[in-house]
């Protein structure tokens, strides 16, 4: 068992012999173990030996203690009820696996209301964080099999299931162990039935969540626990998001190695220098100012990576991943195969942070070779992390190319206020000055449908639209439009319209069918920007392992081949629980459910319950202020606008920045506006900031002088009386006047 538990990510401690043999010591040790740990921890206790039920309590018997003695003396047995201990602790989950009740003699030793594994006698029946897992049901015994050697049937089945790493949650494990026990018993005709069972107190939604929690994920939450504990403004945070493709090749050189190489040695110095020039001195929304040291070393770097499988291991994992995506200064996405989960995470990142992102493709693809890029990412400049052909000597051109990208990216980020390397950041924010262009669009006005535009999924779109309409009608709800973006009657560019609708519509239905990368990118963006979340649906035929998959056409199967990542899809399905429909089915249940959810959902009313549907949005709200650069102070904003129209150095250096400067009027407009912006900025510093505050703030004082000087020059160039008078006033303000 120890080996099997280690394989699924557990640290294992074997209870020493003397403790196991003494009931009081064993009880103490078990309770100490169960009661320690934090909310993220899972404490798993495995016991194999004898047990019995006395006075409505299930107990285990210490090694070497006789059953008779244990039956009469409570100091000779150990209760399996740890609910009170768990209730007094913060530990996330305590799972007590009990492979006892070896023979009939272990069955109830005294009269009582319950049978072996009955939870009614628990001290704290409402304590969802305590679950027992018995090797057999009431009135059964845990049997021993002799092949491949004498061992407990239950433990044998349990270990085998864990070794296969095919089950992540207790729900999964229970089903698989039961099936395996059945299989083992089928070939042993002399054996009695044995059905392992879980024993929980009162079953609530919290219990169901814990049963679905991926506690047997070999990497999952453990991998994400290696993320930086908090955002440190004085460090560079680099995150690598690996694909399932890469996760299946843990020993192959890949993006994580590429980034690690790029962030060490001379290459690391170059990256740091570029990063520092872009971010040093930046003030964040929460008021902190980034002070990045000149020298680069390990202490100034926070680097982490996780696979897409880790991110979707559970709700907590996803929240951690989302926080890291928001916090990272540099994210390298492994877009090999444009897997749906990676696209979803990229969508979240694209919406929440204007940082540096490198989307990198491996699997033999090299830059310059053809690559089918999803519709929404057509503008993407994709990097290659296919390993170089020879490892012998010389500079690794793959690493060098990546470093150049990052250097250039940070340099552009510094110079261009609108820098983007993923789509959507500005489009979900810049909705227009008119207030009417930003409020929520209600269900009665529009339902936004995000779905694949590929011909293989065309029938799904039509079916979903029709079914939604009928379900709305059945529920007596009024609506005007159920539309995909391309159905929206506007000449506006598709992407611009799409992101506005993603932000504004309350009712957004996302159809996973066909696993379109664009749809998952849009879903990520939607989850990041809307507290209304998304209502997700999937055609049953597209579910992993679905019987209905056989109904897919050959074209659809072929189309799906490169998109469908089984484990990723399983995890995402478990986490997001899309409503399953069957195209062509006459059953109204699926879409009635969709419409019910759509019409009842309200993030304000639902807020106290912290609903799963806006988990991503809520996670971002918690961290965004600590990572987002503050809006520029008004003076800086005015100066930057002025400089971008007509820089002070322009006269001697180069051509005007405005396009079509050959047009006299265009140039005049730019120069005049720049002058007025500088005058406005100077007057703000003169009257709003004032001399006293400028005196204490060397930066403001320097700005005051620079803006004043530039304004004076421009005003004298204008040469009219009013301008010259104002120039003279500014000169006096600067201490230069008469």
């Amino acid at each position, binding site marked *: 068992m120890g080996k099997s538990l280690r394989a699924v990510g557990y640290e294992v401690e074997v209870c020493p012999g003397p403790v196991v043999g003494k009931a009081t010591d064993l009880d103490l040790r078990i309770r100490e173990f169960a009661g320690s740990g934090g909310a993220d921890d899972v404490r798993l206790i495995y016991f194999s030996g004898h047990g019995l039920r006395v006075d409505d309590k299930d107990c285990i018997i210490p090694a070497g203690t006789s059953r008779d003695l244990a039956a009469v003396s409570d100091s000779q047995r150990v209760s399996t009820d740890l609910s009170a201990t768990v209730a007094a602790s913060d530990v996330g989950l305590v799972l007590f696996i009990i492979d006892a009740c070896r023979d009939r003699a272990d069955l109830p030793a005294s009269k009582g209301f319950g049978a072996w594994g009955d939870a009614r006698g628990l001290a704290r029946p409402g304590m969802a964080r305590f679950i027992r897992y018995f090797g057999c049901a009431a009135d059964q015994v845990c049997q021993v099999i002799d092949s491949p050697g004498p061992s407990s049937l239950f433990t044998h089945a349990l270990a085998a299931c864990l070794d296969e790493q095919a089950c992540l949650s207790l729900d999964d494990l229970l089903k698989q162990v039961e099936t395996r026990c059945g299989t083992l018993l089928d070939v042993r005709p002399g054996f009695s039935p044995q059905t392992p069972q879980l024993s929980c107190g009162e079953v609530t939604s919290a219990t169901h969540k814990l049963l679905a929690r991926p506690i047997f994920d070999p990497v999952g939450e453990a991998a994400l626990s290696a993320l930086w504990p908090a955002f440190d403004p004085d460090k560079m945070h680099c995150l690598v998001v690996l694909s399932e493709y890469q996760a299946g090749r843990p020993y192959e050189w890949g993006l994580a190695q590429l980034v690690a190489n790029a962030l060490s040695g001379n290459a690391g110095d170059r990256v740091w220098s570029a990063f520092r020039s872009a971010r040093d001195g930046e003030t964040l929304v929460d008021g902190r100012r980034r002070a990045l040291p000149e020298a680069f070393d390990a202490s100034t770097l926070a680097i982490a990576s996780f696979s897409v499988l880790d991110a979707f291991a559970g709700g907590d994992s996803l929240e951690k991943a989302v926080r890291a995506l928001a916090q990272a200064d540099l994210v390298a996405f492994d877009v090999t195969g444009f897997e749906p989960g990676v696209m979803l995470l990229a969508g979240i990142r694209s919406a929440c942070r204007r940082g540096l992102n490198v989307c990198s493709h491996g699997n033999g693809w090299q830059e310059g070779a053809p690559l089918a890029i999803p519709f929404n990412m057509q503008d993407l400049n994709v990097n290659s992390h296919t390993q170089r052909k020879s490892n012998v000597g010389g500079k690794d051109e793959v690493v060098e190319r990546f470093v150049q990208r990052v250097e250039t990216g940070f340099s552009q980020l510094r110079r261009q206020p609108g820098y983007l390397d993923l789509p959507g950041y500005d489009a979900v924010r810049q909705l227009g000055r008119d207030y009417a262009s930003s409020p929520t669009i209600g269900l009665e006005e529009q339902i936004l449908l995000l779905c694949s535009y590929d011909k293989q999924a065309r029938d799904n779109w039509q079916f979903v639209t029709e079914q939604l309409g009928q379900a709305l009608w059945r529920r007596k709800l009024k609506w005007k439009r159920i539309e995909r973006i391309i159905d929206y009657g506007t000449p506006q560019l598709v992407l611009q319209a799409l992101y506005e609708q993603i932000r504004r519509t309350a009712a957004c239905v996302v159809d996973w069918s066909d696993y379109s990368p664009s749809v998952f990118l849009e879903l990520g963006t939607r989850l990041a920007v809307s507290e209304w979340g998304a209502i997700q649906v999937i055609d049953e035929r597209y579910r992993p392992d679905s019987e209905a998959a056989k109904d897919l056409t050959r074209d659809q199967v072929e189309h799906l081949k490169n998109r469908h990542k089984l484990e990723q899809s399983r995890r995402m399905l478990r986490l997001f629980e899309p409503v399953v429909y069957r195209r062509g089915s006459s059953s109204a249940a699926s879409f009635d459910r969709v419409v019910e959810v759509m019409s009842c959902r309200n993030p304000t009313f639902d807020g106290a319950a912290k609903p799963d549907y806006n988990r991503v949005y809520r996670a971002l709200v918690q961290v965004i202020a600590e990572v987002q650069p503050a809006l520029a102070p008004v003076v800086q904003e005015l100066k930057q606008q002025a400089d971008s129209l*007509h820089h002070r150095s*322009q006269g001697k250096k180069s051509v005007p920045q405005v396009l079509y*400067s050959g047009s006299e009027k265009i140039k005049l407009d730019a120069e005049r506006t720049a002058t007025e912006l500088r005058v406005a900025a100077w007057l703000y510093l003169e009257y709003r900031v004032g001399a006293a505050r400028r005196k204490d703030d060397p930066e403001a004082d320097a700005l005051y002088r620079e803006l004043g000087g530039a304004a004076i*020059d421009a005003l*004298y*160039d204008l040469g009219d009386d009013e301008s*010259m008078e104002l120039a003279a006033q500014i000169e006096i303000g600067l201490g230069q006047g008469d």
Partner: protein
Amino acid sequence: MFMQTMRDAIDILQQALKVATTSRKKGDAWRRAGRDEGAVLAVYDVGAAALQGGIEVVVPARQQLESMTPPLTGDAALCLDEMVESIGALGGLRQRMAQFEQALASYAAGGALEERFALPDTYNRLNAIKLRLLTGPASLQELQAEIKALADLIEAALRASQALSDKGWAWADLGDCLGLLGRTEESARAYATFIAKAEIKSPERALDVLKQIAAALQARADPQIARLQSAIHALQGRLPSP
């Protein structure tokens, strides 16, 4: 230590240039507005004094620059640019103050640096020629070869470097040279580019200088005056109506 000296020199010259620019613009505005000439000259003098002071302070850096072999890079190149510009700007202010000999000396010093380091800038060299035309006794004919050499140099530099094409003043200098050589059509094209690339007020200032030279040549009955008048006409025709 060496780089620090260059950096100091750059800062000093840039600061002096800022003062001089304001002084020049203010003086020009006041002169156009008909303010008292004494006051105008005093304004120019503020800028000239700042430049003069700055240039003197950075003599050690200048000596270092002069000991270097072109092409210069980094801070040394930047320092050279600022120095050449400061010397030229001082010449411009002296010229406005009618201190022609000092102005010519400045232009000559700046021109020597332009030549020594094979800079694409020709401001000092061209202004030296224009000032000699303005103050006499040189005639257009006598300066023909110098002007042609300068025109060839600018044209070659503009053809060699697309980035240099962005510099409005390079096209103005070429337009002036071609105009003085009587190549009116080419001059007009160069001026058109200059107008498109320069700040709004720059062509007006260039035109003012050409008009002053034309007036001086006319007074001396220079036989080639028609060439310059054609150039003035070409530039003026491309400027917007006031």
